Structures are given as C-alpha cells and as structure tokens.
C-alpha cells in the first residue's frame, strides 16, 4: 500500500511540473494523454488496484481519484492560459488603432431647423402641411389682402413664369389660403417650404430661401395666445432663458401685426455685434389674421379669429449656428454639411 501512495504522489508532482513547463497547446495535449488518457499513467495505477489488499482498495481509489482531479484542474487552467496567450500573440490589441470607417450621412442644417421648429408646434397640436411653390396672384397676394398696385407689394418682389399667369411664391403665407379654402376651423398648421424673390445674391440674400408659416384659427383665439405660443416656441428652440418681445409692425394679412424679437442668443440681451448692440434679434413676423383674409376664403370674421406667423429658416439657422453667409446653405460643400 505505502509504495503505491508514494508512487502516485511522485507521479502527481512530476505531472504538475511538466504541465507548468508546457509552452504549446500541442505539448500540453500530449501530457494530458500521457497522464490522463485511457492508457495513461494514472490508468496504469487503476489497473494495479487488483494487486493490493481488499481493505486498502477504497483508500487507494480515493488517492488516485484526488490526483486525477488535481491534474484535470491543472490541465484546464494551463490550457486557458495558453489559449489566451496565443490569442494575444495573434492580435496586437492596439485599442488606439482607428476603427473601420462607417460613413454616416448628415441632414441639411435647414432640414434640421425645419424639423425642430415643426416639432415644437406639433407638440402643442399643430399639423405640418405643405403647399405648391408655383402659385397665382390670388394665393400670393390678393387673398392675403395685398391688392395689385399697392405699396405693400414693394416688400414682395416676385418671379413670374413666362406668360405672367403663374408666379413663384414669395412667401409661405400662400399655404394659409390653400388650407383655409379646403378645410373649416379649428385649424392649426405649420407650413415649411421654399420661397423665391428676385434678389441679387450676396452673403445675406438669396433668390431662393425657406420659410415656415404658422396658422391657428378657431373661436376665441386671442393675441395673448399668439404671445403664449411664440414664447413657448422661442424657449424650446433657443433655450429656457430666452426672452421674447413683440414690436408693432405692418403686414397686410395680419392685424394687429408684430415683429417678434428674441433676446440675443450670444449676449443674452446685453448687446453685442451680432444683435447690433440692441440685445434683441428679429426672428419673425406675426399677428392676428386680418378679417379680409377670412373674407377671401369665406370664413366669418365675426365668428372666428386666428393668429399667423412666419419666419425665415435660413435666418434662424444662421443665428443658431453662427453661420455668416446664406450662400453656404446652397453650395452643398460637404465640409459645411458635415458640421451639422
């Protein structure tokens, strides 16, 4: 009995040393077969079990089993360690190596601003709509209370198609008329789109640009509601601290009319070069829908009131992002587009 225990112990020590020294998975596997294989050294001891006295057998069996467990665990441990070593040899694992580029596109900054503006108003129940870009005098002027040969047309230089019957809309207010003609109140719409004016192109003028028009018509709509809606809009778009100011102005299709200023985004109203030291930035025109506009679409101005507003998208994008040249929006230089 005693020699067997000693022999098994020696075998175990020897095996553990060899496992420790094994440098390759192949060598390790060889050792495993050599010791734990079906015809391995440990199996030889088991085969000798019959030669020892009956009474010693359980103890001898237990010893052989324990050695078997110890070696199995040692093999496993060494194998794991060899595997990970070989992996780290194959890959250098430089985590600072640049990744494989996956190109991602960018939405145009004007698209982003249009969507942001629309989302604010959609959030309070407005619906986004669109109208045609090629229009007639009726939608661009007459129904909007801008009669022919009237000085109020001066601010709306307009492209005409040959023949003079059609024009390119010079404002998105046209959509007000389009929608009111086909639907009854209550109405709450925002209408983004392109507009055109024959302006010489420079850093602040473009013959094509974008506007968003807003219109709310229902019973009991007030000037206070206009202020409330636009105040919320300014805070959502430009930040909670933004203040808003209404200045009386004239637009043919609204009355009372206002130009709407927000506190300068750069200096927060203290006065800087962006706001011309005024502390305020003009961002849109607004007002209560003129009764003549309601009359033009067959609404009863005694029954319904409404407010409307319109803003230039380029201007808002320029203020928001500090862009100083309107032409950049239409040059589509990827170095510009990628910044948004």
């Amino acid at each position, binding site marked *: 009995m005693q020699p067997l225990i000693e022999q098994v112990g020696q075998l175990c020590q020897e095996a553990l040393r060899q496992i420790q020294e094994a440098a390759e998975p192949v060598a390790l596997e060889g050792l495993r077969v050599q010791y734990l294989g079906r015809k391995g050294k440990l199996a030889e001891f088991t085969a000798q079990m019959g030669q020892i006295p009956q009474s010693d057998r359980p103890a001898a069996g237990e010893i052989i089993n324990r050695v078997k467990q110890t070696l199995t665990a040692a093999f496993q441990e060494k194998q794991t360690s060899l595997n990970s070593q070989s992996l780290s040899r194959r890959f250098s694992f430089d985590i600072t190596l640049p990744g494989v580029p996956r190109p991602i596109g960018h939405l145009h900054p004007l698209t982003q601003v249009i969507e942001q503006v629309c989302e604010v108003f959609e959030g309070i129940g407005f619906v986004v709509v669109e109208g045609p870009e090629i229009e007639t005098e009726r939608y661009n002027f007459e129904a909007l209370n801008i009669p022919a040969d009237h000085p109020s047309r001066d601010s709306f230089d307009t492209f005409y198609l040959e023949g003079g019957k059609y024009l390119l809309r010079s404002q998105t207010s046209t959509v007000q008329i389009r929608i009111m003609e086909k639907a009854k109140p209550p109405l709450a719409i925002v209408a983004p789109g392109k507009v055109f004016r024959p302006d010489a192109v420079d850093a602040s003028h473009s013959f094509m640009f974008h506007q968003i028009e807003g219109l709310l018509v229902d019973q009991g709509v007030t000037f206070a509601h206009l202020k409330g809606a636009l105040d919320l809009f300014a805070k959502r778009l430009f930040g909670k601290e933004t203040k808003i100011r209404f200045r009386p102005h004239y637009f043919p299709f609204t009355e009372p009319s206002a130009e709407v200023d927000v506190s300068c985004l750069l200096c927060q109203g203290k006065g800087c070069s962006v706001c011309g030291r005024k502390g305020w930035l003009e961002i849109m025109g607004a007002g209560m829908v003129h009764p003549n506009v309601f009359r033009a679409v067959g609404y009863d101005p005694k029954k319904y*009131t409404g407010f409307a507003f319109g803003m230039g998208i380029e201007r808002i994008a320029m203020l928001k992002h500090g862009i100083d040249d309107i032409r950049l929006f239409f040059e589509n230089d990827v170095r510009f587009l990628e910044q948004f």
Partner: protein
Amino acid sequence: MKIPLEWLKEFVNIRLSPAELADRLTMAGLEVKAVEETASGVVFEAEITPNRPDWLSIYGVAREVAAVTRQKLRENGKWKMENRKNPFSNCKVLIHDAKACPRYIGRVIEGVNVSSSPEEMVKRLSAMGTRSINNVVDITNYVLFELGQPLHAFDLDKLQGSTIHIRFAKAGEEIITIDGITRKLTPQDLVIADEIRPVAIAGVMGGKETEVTESTRNTFLESACFDPMLVRRTARRLGLASESSYRFERGIPLESVLLGSDRAVEFLARLAGAQKIGPRVDAGKKTSQERKIVLNVHRVQHLLGGGITQKQVQNCLSGLGFSISKKGQKARGRKQELGVAVPGFRKDIKEEIDLAEEVARVHGYDKIPSQLPAMRETTIGPSPLLEFQRDLRRRLAGLGYDEARTHSLTSHTALKTFGQAGRSDLGKIQNPLSEEQEWMRPTLVIGLTQAAQRNFFHQRSGVRLFELSHTYSLSKGHPRESLKLGFLLGGDQPRHWQNKEEEYQWGDLKGAIEAILSGLKFQGIQWERASLPWAIEESAAEVYHQGEILGIAAQIAPKLLSTLDIEKPVFVAELEVEKLFKHAGKETARYRPLPKFPSVRRDIALELKEAVPAAQVMAVIREKGKELLESIQLFDYYQGKQIFSGNKSLAFSLEYRAPDRTLTDEEINHVHQQVAQGLMERLGAKVR
C-alpha cells in the same frame, strides 16, 4: 426716413433722451433703425411701414410722439394764410377726372426773388438728404418733409394760356422731365398740362421747360393729391421714384393739400419776397367724408386677450386724434359700443380691427398677457406623405449620404450640358435677375452634379449626396411640381487601413436603391435598360414596380463630366417620391412565424456567355428551385484568364428550406441538380 430731433421739437416737447424716445417709438410701431449724431444734432433713421403715410413727415411723427409720450402737439396755426380776395391774375384749374385727382390747389405768386435759401433751411434739407437748389424749390421740398405734402412750383411765364388741366396724356405726347430726359407718355399717365402740352407728370416729376430757374419772377404753385395707383404705375413704368411719388403712392389726405399750399405761401412771402399772392384756385373736393367706426370694447378686449380697460381704450384712441362718442350704450347688456370718428390723415383705419391695433400698440404689446392657446382637434390631420419624406431623409443619411439643397432655378447652359435644353415642357422665368435663374429645373441631377463638382474642386476625393425636393414642368401651360429623391455617388470610397482605395461603382448606387426599396417593403423590382441623354448608354436604367416606373439610375457620361472638370466616375439616381409612397408597404406589418426547420446552403458556380443578364440566371434558378428555394445570393463574379474570353463566371449560394420538415440530402441533391440542369439547358451555362 430721417427725423432730425430739433425739427421735431418745433411741434412737440420732448422730455425723453433720444435713446428712450427711439425705443418708445419703435415699441409703438414707428421703428427707429438708427440714432445718428450729425452736425445738425440727433437724427433718427426710421422705417415707415406702407400703411402709415401720415408718418412720412416731421409733423406726422410729432403727432405720434405727442400721443405716445402724452404731450401736447403744437397745432401751429400761424402759417395759415388768409385767402386774399383781390384777384389780379386769371387762372383756372380744370380736373378732367375727379377720381384721378381728387383735389388740386393752384396759386399764382408774383414777384418772387429766386436766390439761395437761408442757412437753417439748407441745413434741415441736407439732414433729410436733399440738396438745396434755390429758395423757391427748397420751400416746396421743405414743406414736403415738414407736412408730407408734395408741392411743385412752375415758372408761370412759361405756361401757355391761363388754364391748368389735370388730364390723361394723349397718345404720342412727350415731356422732357427736370432731369433732362425725354419721356414718352401713354394715355394711362396722368399729367398736368397747360393749354398746349404736358408740363408735369402728375405726382412723379415736373417738366424741364417750366421749371423754376434763377430768372423766374412769377410762379404757379401746385398742391394736390392724385390717385395713388396712377402715380405708382407711372412712376414704376418710367423708373422714376421720388420723395413726392413715394408719398402720393401711399395717399395724401385732402386736408393736407390746403395746409401745404398755405405753408408754402407763407414761406414764399417771408423768404422769397413774393409780392403778390393770388387767391387759392381750389378744384375738387375740399374735405373727405367723415368716417365713423363702431367699436365694440368687449370684442377688442377679448381679441387682445385682456389686460386693457375701457378707459385705456378710450385714452389710446383720443390721444391719437380719434374723437369718441359713446353710442348705442345698451342699458341692460354689458355691450359697450363706442362711435369713433377717424381723422382725415388716417386713411389706413377702415374697420374695428384697425382700431384694435391702434389701441394695442399705443397701450403696449408688452402689457398684453401671454397664454398658451387651448387646442382643439383640428379638421386637418398629419400628412402621411410628409412623414414619409422625413423617413426617407433619415434612410438616406443612414446609408451615408449627406443631404444637399440645390437651387430650383437653373441656367440654359446647365440644361444644355445635360441635354435638357429645348424641352417643350420647361418652365421659364419671365423676370430673372441673372441667367442662373432663367429656368425651372426639370431634374435634380443637374444640381447634384454641380454640387459634386464643387466638392471635387475642393480636393474631396469622394461624395455621397442626396436631395429630396421638387422638379418642375409644364403640362398644357400649367405648372406641375414633382417630388423627387435624387442621390449621387462619385469618386472614391472612403479610404482606410483595411481597404485599398477604390472608386465607387454602379453596384454601389444600385445597392443604395435596393436598400431603400427593401426598407420600404418593396417586392418585385424590375430593372430595364433606358436611354438618358446625360448617361453612359449601357449604364442607364429604369426601375419598375408593377409596371410603373419608380425612377432612373445611371453613370454620368465622362464626356459631360469633363466639361465640368470632373475626372472621377459619378453615378446618379432619381426616384419619384410620390410613386414610392404609393407603392411602399403601408399596412401594419403582420408577423410571419419563424421557420421551425433548418435550411441548407448549396453553392453553384457557372460559366456562361457575358451577354446573359444576371436577372435571367436568377429567374431560372428560382423557377427550378421551386418552393424549396428560399434565397439566392451572388457571391462571386469573375471575368479573366481562367475562363474563356467572352464568358463570365457567376457563383451563387442557394438556400433551401421546407416549412414542415428537415430536408434530406436526397431531396436537396435532387432540386440542386434540377437547377444546374436548367441553367445548362436554358442558358448554356457550364457548371464548374
């Protein structure tokens, strides 16, 4: 308009600092754009909106200042000249059309001494941006700025006869205007004429032959108002805009005609030594009909949303010169109606809403409360097509395309380059400012290619751009707008360390289209050969779904690109958004149970004639693979030394599956064999 403060102070006390006053006026709608320190003191630069011609004078602005600062306006009566009774000169004024000229006051003034104006007057005119001419002309300009009434002084001795006609020009008549230019007149132009010829274009400009010069001794002074529309049309047609026409276009009140004439006469007597001043020859209406508007205080309060009392409403209006009488005060109801009489100079006030605005702006927009509207469900719901557009934009950005926005107008040159010039359905702009704005674009391809050109010019090696926007055409003279999704791929793929630099290929464009269409749940897309004037012929394709064309795709012809200095390959596609929308799967997706049994992949490599389209090969595979064939994937395409020249090699991976059982080797071998056989028999393919 310029407003010198020291001139303003003649009519109203100003206790505020210039900056404070500028702010008060701006917040009342008279926008002071700039406050300038000049040699003649502080001058405001104001923007006067077209509804307020009554602000186009120092006196008019003073009236507003008085109203918003609660000061008294100096109704300076001293300039009113008595109308001298001793007629010493026969002079008649004949208005031919009362609508064209509602009032005309003429006056003969004899013995004037034409010389230079006093320094004070020269200074004030210069502050207004007007050069001094001589005392008589300066007086007319001075009164124009002070009271807003344009005047004209003729040299009396150069007028023929004793009757002044206000009439329309006769066909063929001409006049040399003060600027020395001969103007052809039309029967739509209103003129001032003596017995034989036009001597002034009404409201626009006087004639050279009858202008006041150094040698003038006697003058005929005109103060009038004309139909704003006539003045506007003529001034526009002749390209002659002046301080006078600007005011006439916006409307001159009848009362001002007299005021202006009297004020000028006073100056002529004082500063030009006028010896004999003739009687007013006053033709036309003397005063405008009094306009009265009924104002419902409650309605106004309600429209503004509160924050203003009836007393404040009344104070605002009376401060602006409206006279108020309580009218129709209903004993029982709370309805409070006011009768508001509108002064003659407020031609812009026509109905109650106009008064509401006056009240709101003088009271202060800042005093009106701010409140979110109570929203009700609207009659118009969200547009699925707009949602679709938002979705498309995101898909394209996800595929790595940058969104472009190009101009809707284009040039003849660009159209010609892309073979689009001369199309009969193009919209043409009647009044372009430059040749870049002459035509409505019929396609997004031009603008996108130009954008690519710009990027290549900036040394960019590759671009991916898309645009979702309108193209335009005419159909029987009526415009049509079509929503298109254009995208462009050009130059090199992004270069990086795991990939050698390679140029984009046709397959990259087609892959993007397929990705979009499959994302939109399109099934059964056909690609057909097409003919596009700007494309490489073999590359031009049309994309069809259920027999309807969805769009086009092609590689742009290198010859065209070389005219744009582009040396890299450029691929473009243009899809019809409304058709995509129409055919895209819109139903809520229904779940299909996942397969319960495994699939088996088998590859097949073929060598066949180059001219056999891949679509045909796949059609045969599909037909022969029957219902067991789940998917086909091309994983290799080869042309080269290892195969016969004129042939190509295609390798497909086929996936077989049955829904109700695990396929046996035998079954798969059988069907795969059928596929191979079909390809050999039908297409002459050699299975490798």
